[in-house]
């Protein structure tokens, strides 16, 4: 069942596909930026400031998506004792953290012309800040804990505890009165975004996903070579 998660198999794919993903990312990003900055229309209420949405929203989606994946992998680490799950999780974390920071900063920049303030202790913003802290604690745990098996346990536990925050972020706009508007994209019902804005948003999300994949593959390769370096010492 977990053959796909074998480190050697992933390394084989990742070491060969990185350059292709890099070029694909550059192409998709160029199209996305052209659409987002020049071709998409301005909003009737927010004018050109709405263009910040094309970096803010995909970054927030990716930060949440990556954390959710890391949660499944962390649970898998405990349940199935699969040693590759933590390696995949560790390789996903840096891009997730950067997406989270981008979502917070661009949100703050968007907040100034829209709400008249750089920062508000609004439920969605605060819960996103907490998510960034969990990412930070996870990355820090790998830096400061020297014993590898302890680092795996503690870092996985940080992610599992942090997962409580994920539904809070998602439903914060429904549960509390926040400055953020309700969801515009819905799976079960019609979306309220016009296609002229939805298409650039989709392209930018694809570009961000490709960037995340690129960083994941490079980071995974680094971790694998690091392990093999230790293996050479033991020969």
């Amino acid at each position, binding site marked *: 069942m977990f053959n796909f998660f074998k480190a050697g198999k992933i390394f*084989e794919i990742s070491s060969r596909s990185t350059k292709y993903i890099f070029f694909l990312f550059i192409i998709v990003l160029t199209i996305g930026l052209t659409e987002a900055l*020049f071709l998409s229309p301005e909003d009737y209420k927010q004018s050109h*400031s709405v*263009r910040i949405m094309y970096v803010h929203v995909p970054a927030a989606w990716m930060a949440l998506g990556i954390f959710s994946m890391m949660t499944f992998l962390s649970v898998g680490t405990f349940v199935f004792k699969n040693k590759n799950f933590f390696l995949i999780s560790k390789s996903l974390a*840096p891009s997730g953290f950067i997406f989270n920071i981008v979502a917070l900063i661009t949100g703050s*920049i968007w907040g100034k012309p829209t709400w008249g303030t750089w920062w508000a202790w609004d439920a969605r913003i605060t819960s996103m800040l907490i998510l960034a802290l969990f990412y930070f604690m996870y990355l820090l745990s790998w830096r400061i804990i020297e014993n590898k098996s302890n680092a795996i346990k503690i870092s996985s536990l940080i992610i599992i505890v942090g997962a409580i925050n994920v539904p809070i972020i998602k439903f914060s706009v429904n549960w509390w009165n926040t400055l953020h508007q309700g969801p515009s994209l819905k799976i079960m019902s019609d979306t309220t975004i016009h296609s002229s804005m939805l298409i650039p948003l989709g392209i930018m999300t694809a570009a961000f996903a490709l960037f995340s994949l*690129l*960083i994941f593959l490079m980071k995974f390769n680094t971790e694998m*070579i690091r392990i093999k370096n230790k293996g050479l010492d033991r020969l």
Partner: protein
Amino acid sequence: MINEIISMNGYGPYVWSAFVFTLSSFASLYLITKLQLLKEQKRYIAKFGSLNESKTAVAREQKINKEILLNTVITKI
């Protein structure tokens, strides 16, 4: 025309700074990750080169070692 694109009805500084911040964050993360990868590859090559013949033969039997060596050679080219 260019002034319009830059100013964006007065929203230009907000829009451009958001995009510049995003892209520079991506570039920084990419460069840091790439440098870490190159550093590990360099260390691996140095260690592999210092192995004696019998150890090299053992290391070469592992598929993943072959893959690292192949990938490092391609990267250098």
